[in-house]
């Protein structure tokens, strides 16, 4: 199978859907003439023109709101945030307008739109460019939240997100755009809300999503050398969460470690922990462990990045801990 970059997979998804439906447009900072801050939208201005690939001033609140209004009136906007860190100045439109409009209007105005861009840390970017917002958005009914971890999922899920008639938050990573992976030439879609077992195992279940899942993969490789057989689930979507796939795995392994790049209080790990104790209490042979970021803003120095992020060692230690090793 051919191998393409994560950013190319996203671009193909948008290109294919935009060729199919003239109501879809892409709006954001540097998406057109600059070809995308991270080159996701490279070449799209040439193909679709400036009516459909729209550069904006630096005004996230304004252009997010304009996109929501356009969706109310029948268009299907894709809003690119250069990073979700900048979505905070637009969050009123995402939460109060996009997420609530359908119910508030008694089912009259649905919101067929996607907000996409990178989330979480990406190296030494300092505190204001390093936050994960998956659990923030996932907390809000009315939204769907998708967090792919590889090019294949990115393309299939983005195509589905664009076709979805509800607002979808689609979260990427600056550190994944260059990742390469197998992506078929022929069209495919991946449903929102379905997790996937990426690695079969019998001893411990690890649940993760987004770029940090690579830490889980690396830990699993190391653990395999020690004879520990880890199962890894990629959630792919954090609203809705595919609890069934998690529960099924936990019933098999009886042990769970959750790896999530997020501050610990009230994050996705917390939610999964609650649901597993509720639905599979009798199957658990050890307390669930979560591996999250430090409960601090992320400082600049490389030592801070190392101290902040979930590490392979932390994941390995956690797996061994739930096995009482």
């Amino acid at each position, binding site marked *: 199978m051919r191998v393409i970059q994560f950013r190319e997979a996203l671009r193909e998804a948008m290109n294919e859907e935009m060729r199919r439906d003239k109501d879809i447009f892409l709006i954001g900072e540097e998406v057109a003439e600059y070809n995308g801050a991270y080159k996701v939208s490279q070449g799209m201005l040439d193909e679709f023109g400036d009516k459909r690939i729209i550069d904006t*001033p630096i*005004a996230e*609140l304004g*252009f997010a*709101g304009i996109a929501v*209004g356009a969706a109310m*009136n029948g*268009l299907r906007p894709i809003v690119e945030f250069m990073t979700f860190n900048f979505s905070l100045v637009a969050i009123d439109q995402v939460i109060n307008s996009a997420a609530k409009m359908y*119910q508030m*209007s008694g089912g009259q105005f649905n919101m067929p739109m996607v907000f996409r861009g990178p989330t979480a840390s990406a190296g030494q970017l300092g505190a204001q460019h390093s936050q994960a917002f998956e659990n923030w958005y996932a907390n809000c009914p009315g939204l769907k939240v998708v967090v792919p971890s590889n090019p294949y999922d990115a393309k299939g899920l983005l195509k589905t997100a664009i076709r979805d008639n509800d607002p979808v938050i689609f979260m990427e990573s600056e550190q994944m755009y260059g990742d390469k992976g197998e992506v078929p030439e022929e069209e495919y879609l991946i449903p929102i809300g379905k997790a996937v077992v990426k690695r079969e195992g019998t001893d411990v279940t690890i649940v993760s999503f987004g770029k940090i899942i690579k830490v889980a993969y690396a830990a699993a490789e190391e653990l395999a050398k020690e004879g520990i057989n880890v199962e890894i689930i990629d959630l792919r979507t954090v609203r809705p969460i595919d609890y069934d796939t998690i529960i099924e795995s936990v019933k098999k392994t009886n042990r769970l470690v959750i790896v999530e790049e997020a501050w610990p209080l009230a994050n996705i790990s917390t939610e999964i922990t609650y649901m597993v104790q509720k639905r599979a209490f009798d199957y658990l042979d050890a307390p669930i462990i979560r591996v999250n970021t430090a409960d601090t803003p992320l400082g600049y120095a490389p030592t801070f990045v190392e101290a902040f992020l979930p590490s392979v060692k932390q994941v390995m230690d956690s797996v061994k801990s739930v096995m009482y090793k």
Partner: protein
Amino acid sequence: MTSFTKETYMRWFEQMMLMRRFEEKTAQLYGQQKIKGFCHLYIGQEAVVAGTMSALNSDDRIITAYRDHAHALACGISANAVMAELYGKVTGCSKGKGGSMHMFSKEHNFFGGHGIVGGQIPLGAGIAFADMYRGGKQVTVCYMGDGAVRQGALHEAFNMAMLWKIPVIFVCENNGYAMGTSVERTTNQMDIYKIGLAYDMPCKEVDGMQAETVHEAIAEAAERARKGDGPTFLEIRTYRYRGHSMSDPAKYRTKEEVEEYKMRDPLERVRKTILDNKWATEAELEAAEEKIMAEVLASVEFSENSPYPEGSALWEDVYSEPNYPFITE
């Protein structure tokens, strides 16, 4: 002398009378706790909406903030559907899910009733953007209060609306007070319309106590928008007789100030013009008023007799996807 026809005046009279009587009834029902939540009355400002609607086509779009009962009625939503929404009944125009602040009707091109001050301003630009994108000739009128113009959302939306020549008319209904804070306490520049100058957006102030001046300003702005020349910003100076919301006794202003505006009452002005021109007799106007009052009373009866939505309807209309897996215990 006036350049408007008898038909226009009669329509203004009926529309403004409906808004006035409907809202007086609303205030009464609020006092009886039939209507709950936040409730903001429009009494005194009726000429703004009436003068707008007579200058627009039926497929033009309207969006406003939470002081939205009159806008909903003027868009053609029935008194029954608006009153039932105030009651929180399933027969309301938002199925009881919106309430006073969130009236909606796609059928009547009414894009709501929005509760975050200034949040509707980029939405209005976006609604108009969609019409422009499809090559339509509709214009959008986006209302806001004098408080909303201090929000950043306005400035971002104004800049892009002007840059892209979006067919939207931004209307600031300046009633002098953002809740309890007068305009002069929030800015050094008292002429709100001048905000448009910073974006080279055509802008002016309009007397909002007369439907005529509002109509003329909206008609001019709509023509500009339909020609592809982009947005207009109108500061329409008006006055609300009641407090900001039902819980506001409006102690921040004098009785004299309120009385001064009531002397220029927009509804009385329309009535006088009709009588002066002998387009109708006192008796005929009273009959029209009685018919409107009957419509209002019927809407109360309709609402009283309508059921509340089932509690389980809370889970409906959150996602258009059927069977979304909500977390339920």
